[in-house]
C-alpha cells in the first residue's frame, strides 16, 4: 500500500526552521513566536476536532437520530438533505448521519490501537536494529523486507482466514502494513543518532543497551515517531476501507467509516455520490486533525519548544 507518507528524518529540522543561532540568531525570534502561535492554533483546532468526534462516538446513543443498523430498505439511497435523514440513507436505508456518528467508535478506536501497536513494534525493532551488530540489524531489516515484499492483500486475507473476519483482522492488517514503514522511518532516524556523542557519552557513563535505546535515544526520536504515527491514523482508516471491500474487517451491519467508504464506492458511478463522499470527508477531516496534532505533539517532545526560559 502506498498509503504512507514518510516524513524524513530531516523533517524535524525543517519544522524547526532555519536556525540562525550560529550567526548570533536570537533564542526566540519573533518569526518563530508567530509560527508557534500558528502551530498552537492548529493543535487546538486539531484537538477540538478529535475531541468532537470522540465525543460524538462516545455519546452516539444519545446523539445519533437513529440506531446505526435501523434499516428500511424502502427508504434506501435517499439523497443528502432529505427530511428525517439529513445526510441521506445508504443501500439498506440506514441513516448515514447516525452511522457516521456510530462509525467513529470502531474506526477511530481501531485505527488508534493499530497505529499504536505498529508504532510500538516498529519503533522497538528500529531502535534495536539501529544499535545492534550487523547480524541482528540484518535479521530485522530482512524481516522488514519480507513484510514489504509481501503483497498486502495476501497478508490481510491470510489474517482474515486464520482469525475469521472482524476487528482483530483489521488491526493486524494495519499493523502488518504500517510496521515496516514505521520501522524504516524510525530506523533511518535512529541511525542518525547512532554516532552521536551523547550516545557515546551514555556508554561512557555505563548505560546498557536497553537503557541507551529507551532512555537516551527514544526521547530524541519520539517526536518524529509521533508525527509519523499520527500521520498514519487517517491513512489507516482509509486503508481499512480498502480491505473491507474484500470482505475483511468489521462485519455488517456495524457502522465503520472504512466500510462506509467502500460501500459508498460501490455506487459512485451509479450516481449515489454522497454515500461515498460523506464518510470520505469525515475521514479526511479526522486525518487532517491527527496530522496537525502530530505536528503539535512533536513540539511537546521537543524541549526547544516546550520551555521558553531564557
Amino acid at each position, binding site marked *: 500500500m502506498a498509503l504512507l507518507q514518510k516524513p524524513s528524518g530531516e523533517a524535524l529540522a525543517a519544522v524547526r526552521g532555519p536556525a540562525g543561532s550560529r550567526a548570533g540568531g536570537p533564542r526566540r525570534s519573533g518569526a518563530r513566536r508567530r509560527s508557534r502561535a500558528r502551530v498552537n492554533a492548529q493543535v487546538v483546532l486539531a484537538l477540538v476536532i478529535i475531541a468532537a468526534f470522540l465525543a460524538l462516538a462516545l455519546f452516539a446513543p444519545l446523539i445519533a437520530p437513529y440506531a446505526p*443498523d435501523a*434499516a428500511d*430498505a*424502502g427508504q*434506501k*439511497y435517499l439523497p443528502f438533505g432529505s427530511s428525517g435523514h439529513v445526510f441521506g440513507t445508504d*443501500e*439498506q*436505508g440506514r441513516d448515514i448521519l447516525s452511522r457516521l456518528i456510530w462509525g467513529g467508535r470502531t474506526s477511530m478506536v481501531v485505527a488508534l490501537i493499530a497505529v499504536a501497536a505498529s508504532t510500538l513494534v516498529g519503533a522497538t525493532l528500529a531502535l534495536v536494529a539501529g544499535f545492534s551488530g550487523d547480524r541482528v540489524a540484518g535479521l530485522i531489516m530482512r524481516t522488514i523486507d519480507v513484510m514489504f515484499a509481501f503483497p498486502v492483500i495476501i497478508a490481510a*486475507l491470510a489474517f*482474515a*482466514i486464520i482469525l*475469521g*473476519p472482524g476487528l482483530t483482522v483489521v488491526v493486524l492488517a494495519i499493523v502488518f502494513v504500517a510496521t515496516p514503514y514505521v520501522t524504516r522511518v524510525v530506523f533511518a532516524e535512529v541511525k542518525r543518532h547512532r554516532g552521536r556523542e551523547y550516545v557515546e557519552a551514555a556508554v561512557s557513563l555505563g548505560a546498557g543497551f536497553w537503557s541507551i535505546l529507551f532512555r537516551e535515544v527514544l526521547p530524541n526520536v519520539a517526536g518524529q515517531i509521533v508525527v509519523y504515527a499520527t500521520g498514519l491514523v487517517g491513512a489507516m482508516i482509509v486503508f481499512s476501507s480498502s480491505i473491507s*471491500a*474484500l*470482505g*475483511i474487517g468489521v*462485519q*455488517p*451491519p456495524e457502522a465503520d467509516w472504512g466500510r462506509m467508504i467502500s460501500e459508498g*464506492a*460501490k*455506487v*459512485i*458511478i*451509479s*450516481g*449515489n455520490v454522497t454515500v461515498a463522499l460523506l464518510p470520505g470527508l469525515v475521514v479526511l477531516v479526522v486525518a487532517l486533525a491527527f496530522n496537525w496534532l502530530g505536528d503539535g505533539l512533536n513540539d511537546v517532545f521537543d524541549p526547544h519548544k516546550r520551555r521558553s526560559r531564557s
Partner: protein
Amino acid sequence: MRTNRWLGVGAALVAAAVVLSGCSNPAGAEDTQAAAGEPQYGGDLVVGLYLEPLALDPHRQGYWETYRVSNNIFEGLTREDTTDTTGPTEIQPALATDWSVSDDGTTWTFDLRDGVTFHDGSDWNAEALDKNVRRISDPTYEFYDESSAAKLKQWFGTLTSGTVVDDDTYQFAFSKPFLGFPRILAQSMATLTIGNPAVWEQYGNDGFADHPEGTGPYKFVSRTVGDRIELEKNEEYWGDEPYVDTITFRIIPNNQTRLASLLSGELDLISYVQPEDVETLEAQGFQVPEGTGSSLLYISYNFTNPAFEDVRVRQALIHGLDRQKLADELYNGYAEPQYSFQPPGNEAYDPEVRDFEYDPEKAIALLEEAGYGEGDLAFTIVVDVANQNTAEWLQSQYKEIGVDVEIVSLDRTSYIARAYGPEENDGLSLDEYGGTYAEWLSQGFAGLAGKGLDPADFPEITGAIDAAASTADPDARIDLWKSAEETLRNEAVVIPTVNLTRYYALGSNVEGFVWPATNWYDLSKVWLAD
C-alpha cells in the same frame, strides 16, 4: 427406439434460419445502407464479463461466464434453443442431427451431423466424438484426462461404453436409465462439449486450453488472462453465418468500472447489472432487457447446527421472509420472488407452487413451539462479500421475528470453505445457482449435503430424486422431478429467495440479442447497428 420428439421443431428452425440468411445479403452488408432492424454483418462486439473465465477446455470448464465465451468456440451434440425467452429452452440438434434412446432408457444413439469441420479443417465424425468420450472416461486412452474425468463423473459416472457405430453414428450406454442426457449434453459444465482431438494429440491435455478448438461459429484468436479473450468469425461454420466479425471479451470484475465502461461506450454488452444501475442505464438509452436466467438465489441451512434439525425452525425462517419485499426493496423490483428450488427456465419448474408464505406471526409461533422465544435463536449468516447487502437485509428482516443474525461476509473462496465446512454457530449461507435441466435438483441437493445435510435423514427426498433420475418412462420423468421438488420443499431444507429479472445491459446499437431462459446467450445472432 423412438425418434427424438424435438427433432421436428429443430428441423423447422433450421429451415427458418436458412430462409432468413437467404434473405440477407452478407457480401454487400457493409456497403448497403441497412434499414433499422435489418441485420448487418461486420464489426467488433465487445463484451464485459464480470468474472475471469476458467480454462477454455470443453471438459474442464466451469462457471457460466466461461461458457458465455466458450460456447462460441465449442458445441455439444445438442444445444438449447437460445431464441426462446419464455419457457424452458428446447433442445435442438447441434453436432448431432438426431438421437434416440432405448426403451430401458440406458442406451442413447446419436446421428452425427455431416460436413462439419473443426476450426483446423479436420472432420467432425464418430471417431472424433469417440476420442472426446475416451478422454473423459477411458483410462487406457493415451490422452485420458484425469481431471476432466473427475469433473464429468457426475453425469458420466454411469457410462458403461461409448461405441462408434459408423462414421456418423455413435452410441452411449449407461448402467442406469438416463433420460435427461440430451439436455445435459447442452449444458456448460461437467458435460461433454466437443473439442478437437487433434489439439490434445498435438499439445497434450494441458495444452488444450491454450489452443481451444471446436466447431463453433467463432474461432479462438488470443487470450490475455486478466484482460481479454478475442475471437473471430468462423468462415467455415456449418450453421448460420454469424454477424459480427470479431468478439472481444473483456474481464472487468469491478461492478462500477464495468458499468462506467459500458456508459462510456467501451463495451457493447455486460453481464451482471446491479439493480441500482438499471435506471441509470435506461435513462441514457442503454438496453437492459427483461428476462430470467435459469438460476436462483437460495439460502441454505447449516445442518450441523442442531437448531436446524427441527423442521419448525426451518419453516419459521421461510415464513419470516418476505421475498416480494426483498425483490422490491433490495433489487429495486428487478427480481422476482422464488418459491421453488427449481429455478425458472428449468424443465421441471412450476411457477404456481408455493412453499411457506410470508407470515411473521406464524413464524414466531413456530419458533415458540420449537422452544425459541424472542432473541433465543441466534446464529451467523455466512455470505460472499458480493451478497453482503442481501445478508444485511435478511438480518433486519429476521429481527422482526425475534431471530438474532450476525453476518460473516467473506471473500469468495473463504466463503465457500466456510459455507461448506461450517462452524458450529453458523446458520445460513447464500448461494446462486441453477440450470434448465430437471436433474439440477439432484445437484442442488448434493450441494446441500456439502453443507452438512445428511441425505440419510431425508429418505423421502433422496428416494424421490433417485426415482426421477433413473426413470425409464419419458412421460413420467418431469412429473417425478416435480414431485421430488415438492418433497424437498415440504421438508424446508432450503429457502429459495429471488431470481434476477435484469442481468445484461447492452449498448443502444446492439441488435439481435436474446436473453433466453438459461444462463448464457448466443452471440452469433447479435449484430451491430450503426
